[in-house]
């Protein structure tokens, strides 16, 4: 069955520190992979996506992610976290025949001053 696991429910980092959010997936075919961010009361904003090609993808707001097929992972990274990065982060896999996305449970990022 297709699924996404985000092992860390809650992460706290200090402002300026580096960040890595983990994502593991189970998918029968070559996946499309996404990271979305959700601020309180807001919809989901796409940070970055992987469809094919270079396994290291760059996104908005200084985020990047690396697709590792052998580990079934797509971890999100940022070298220096800003207080405004505090939010909920969701990894998703798709698209399936009809484009639907399967989301992980999310990781809440808290940033300490």
């Amino acid at each position, binding site marked *: 069955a297709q699924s*996404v696991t985000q092992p860390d429910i809650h992460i706290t980092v200090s402002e300026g520190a580096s960040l890595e959010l983990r994502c593991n997936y189970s998918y029968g075919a070559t996946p499309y992979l996404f990271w979305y961010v959700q601020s309180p009361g807001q*919809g989901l904003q796409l940070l970055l996506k992987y469809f094919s090609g270079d396994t290291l993808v760059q996104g908005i707001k200084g985020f990047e992610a690396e697709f590792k097929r052998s580990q079934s992972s797509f971890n999100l990274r940022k070298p220096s976290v800003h207080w405004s990065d505090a939010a909920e982060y969701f990894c998703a896999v798709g698209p399936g*025949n009809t484009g639907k*996305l399967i989301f992980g449970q999310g990781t809440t990022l808290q940033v300490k001053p």
Partner: protein
Amino acid sequence: GAGVSQSPRYKVAKRGQDVALRCDPISGHVSLFWYQQALGQGPEFLTYFQNEAQLDKSGLPSDRFFAERPEGSVSTLKIQRTQQEDSAVYLCASARDTHYEQYFGPGTRLTVT
């Protein structure tokens, strides 16, 4: 340009009432998706439209849920005889086509009392 919009942003319904949630996708986007997001969870797929055709409704939790997109643009998600377990945020997303990235609206928070 304008993003995906949803209305109302908040809806309180008494148990047993019918509700209708509206989604205006990005102009020209062929694909439209509905997701349900329970508190503290990732979004879960409900249904998918390609233009006016509903091609996948496998995620609708019961026959009380009904979605339509009669002219291939605006979509409405209707929930009949609402139950407390229907309380969630309902997210709409649109995409240029099936296998392109999805852009999400701000969601409608439904509370059933």
